[in-house]
């Protein structure tokens, strides 16, 4: 059953402002996964190619 509150006391503007915490909002954001970063794929791709060329050069 839905509750009905008549003439409920509302917190003041100052009270609400006091509860603002933007740092908490930033800390609650999900951390970026390195696996989805283009930097990760760039670095992995580059090192794989470098390794491949090294083996080709070393054994040919």
């Amino acid at each position, binding site marked *: 059953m839905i509750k*009905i*509150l008549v*003439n409920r006391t509302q917190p003041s503007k100052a009270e*609400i402002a006091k509860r603002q915490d933007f740092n908490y909002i930033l800390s609650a*954001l999900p951390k970026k996964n390195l696996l989805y970063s283009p930097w990760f794929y760039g670095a992995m791709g580059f090192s794989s190619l470098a390794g491949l060329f090294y083996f080709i050069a070393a054994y040919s």
Partner: protein
Amino acid sequence: MILIERAKQNPAHFAPLYKKYHDAIFRYVFKRVDEEEAAYDITSCVFVKAIINLPKYEYRGVPFSSWLFRIAKSELYQSFRDKKAKRTISIDSVQIGRVMEEFSIDENEHKREILLKVLPLLKDKQLQLIEMRFFEKRSFREMGEILELTENNAKVKTFRALIKLKALYAQHNPLK
């Protein structure tokens, strides 16, 4: 719009938008939940979700504030489903008077009690419309933006909700 574009690049730049809209979002949530602490928690979740989804936000006629209210609405219903908060209607005497006036009935203690008894009997979507229009004095345009309806549709649905409320009131009023 500049603030939004900057915030899309870096979440830390969302701070001015958070400061600007925190009060309005909190009050929207507070009126619909029974506990103040739950309202603060839900408000925080709204802004976390807003920052996460900000890259998807594009201005297509819907103001940024209405976009935030949409997130607040969905977060509220998620909290009700998770039983983290209880659906509540916060109403004051002036707002009760406004609805009575719409019904063209004289206000007295007995009639007020009947109205308060029948309000929760409305379907939730109808209740949302009554809350927004008569308790929060929102325009049909804004209501449409928040509820993802056209302005005209919001008007028609509010009118139907009012008729339903009137019928429920008549059913429960022994002194017709």
